């Protein structure tokens, strides 16, 4: 039976980082991105969990869980949503090999509900718009990552 990876976890984002490496040509076509993304997953059981993914050029430089909220690097943007919302998005991506029209990151964040994107200042939030296609492609890697949620 195929191994399922827990979301959220550093392992899960590492899997996406491996998918990214395998698709370097596609990321080269989209263009390089240098930014730090924090994924925040909220659930009644586990509270807020934060994962930092640092992108450099065409790959992921590092992945880690941020345990101390004060430990977030100065330059970043945060995408935050409930575990349920993340699950729905990931499963939609898995089902269609990419999101349908109503499950892209921009679609989910634009109305500030059910996802929100925020940075310490507007320019850093704007980085999410600037690299949006590449970030979407990164999450589309979930197509190949069987996932369980907690």
């Amino acid at each position, binding site marked *: 039976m195929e191994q399922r990876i827990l979301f959220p976890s550093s392992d899960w984002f590492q899997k996406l980082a491996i998918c990214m490496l395998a698709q370097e040509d596609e990321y080269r076509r989209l263009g390089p991105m240098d930014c730090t993304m924090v994924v925040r997953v909220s659930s009644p059981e586990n509270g807020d969990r934060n994962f930092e993914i640092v992108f450099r050029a065409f790959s992921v430089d590092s992945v880690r869980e941020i345990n101390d909220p004060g430990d977030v690097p100065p330059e970043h943007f945060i995408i935050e949503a409930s575990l349920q919302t993340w699950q729905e998005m990931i499963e939609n991506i898995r089902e269609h090999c990419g999101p349908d029209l109503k499950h892209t990151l921009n679609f989910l964040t634009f109305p500030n509900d059910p996802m929100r994107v925020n940075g310490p200042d*507007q320019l850093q939030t704007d980085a999410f718009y600037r690299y949006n296609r590449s970030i979407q492609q990164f999450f589309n890697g979930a197509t190949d990552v069987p996932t369980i949620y907690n």
Partner: protein
Amino acid sequence: MAKYTPTVEVGLDRMRDMARGNFDLSWMDSNPEGWGHKVQRSQAGLKLTDVDHGFYGQVPAQGSSHGTMAPRGCYVPEGTISLDQYTINEMTEIWADNAASLYDEAVVRQWNSVTDVPWEKLKTLPDDMEKAVCQMCTGLAEVEFVAGDMPAKWLCRINHDFHEVKLFLATQIMDEARHLDVFRKRALANGGGLLMASPGQEELLAAILNAPDYATASALMHIFGEGFVLTLFRQGEYLAPTEVEKTIFGLCMQDEARHVAYGVKHLKFLLERQPEREEEIHAILEKGEQAIFSLTLEPQTSEPRAILAGGGLANIELGMMRMAFIYQKQVHEYLQRLKVAGIDRTNRLSIPTEIPYAEIAA
């Protein structure tokens, strides 16, 4: 009588000299300070910021007075004629610390409307939706290229020492060409066509093109105008009825965010060095705010978006409510970007921060 002009005769004499083995070769040692430059490539490849460091990274506060197109850092021989073109010679007027990296980002993140949009996925839409998409695209095709014309108007006036900015603006012109072209294509590609132009938009375009100098034009266009358009593109992706519009708006959104990023950093650079110019900036921004507010009242601008936001003509009122949210977001992000640039306009904003549509409709 000589067969050729004196210039050609001198050239021929020089060739005869070289044929006899008499070469000059002084150019080989003309720039000792600039020779032996070391470069380290970035992960993404060779960037402008990788090569323009040290000796070559020194950007003069005042562009060189020789007035030529000689690349910054080379030796310019005495007597080289000035082109007498450059009126923007102060770094503060145009500089942004991110210009070089935005240029590199822009050249790699180029796309095209011929093959990158999945046009084969266009499908017949209900008449009201197709008309709304076509009207929105008519408006965008009208407004997009001001962000090409404005940099083009100033580009040949910018001192050649500021090549980072000139190159970035050149990418912006290409980006805007693509935006104009892709919205025109979308309007014409699905059995509809272009609809009504917008006199209201022309007012804003005029304010950008007639701004007294580059710095104010840039504040008005890069931060105010393109910031509003950036939100509009995000909204376009959100409302997209098919994969085609989804792709178009998603790609345009990325380009627009680069233009806004330049504008914010440029204004920051300017105001840190010339804080006395803040009032000029407020004045031009007020002009823009007034123009954009009157735009929201124009039926050909607001109604198609409301139809798309509501999901059809039958739900246009719901769409108007959703549009009020978008307006609020546009104003909020605009004020936040100004804050990054060092301007607090919260108390001087000449338009409401939100449109209480539900209240107005009641």
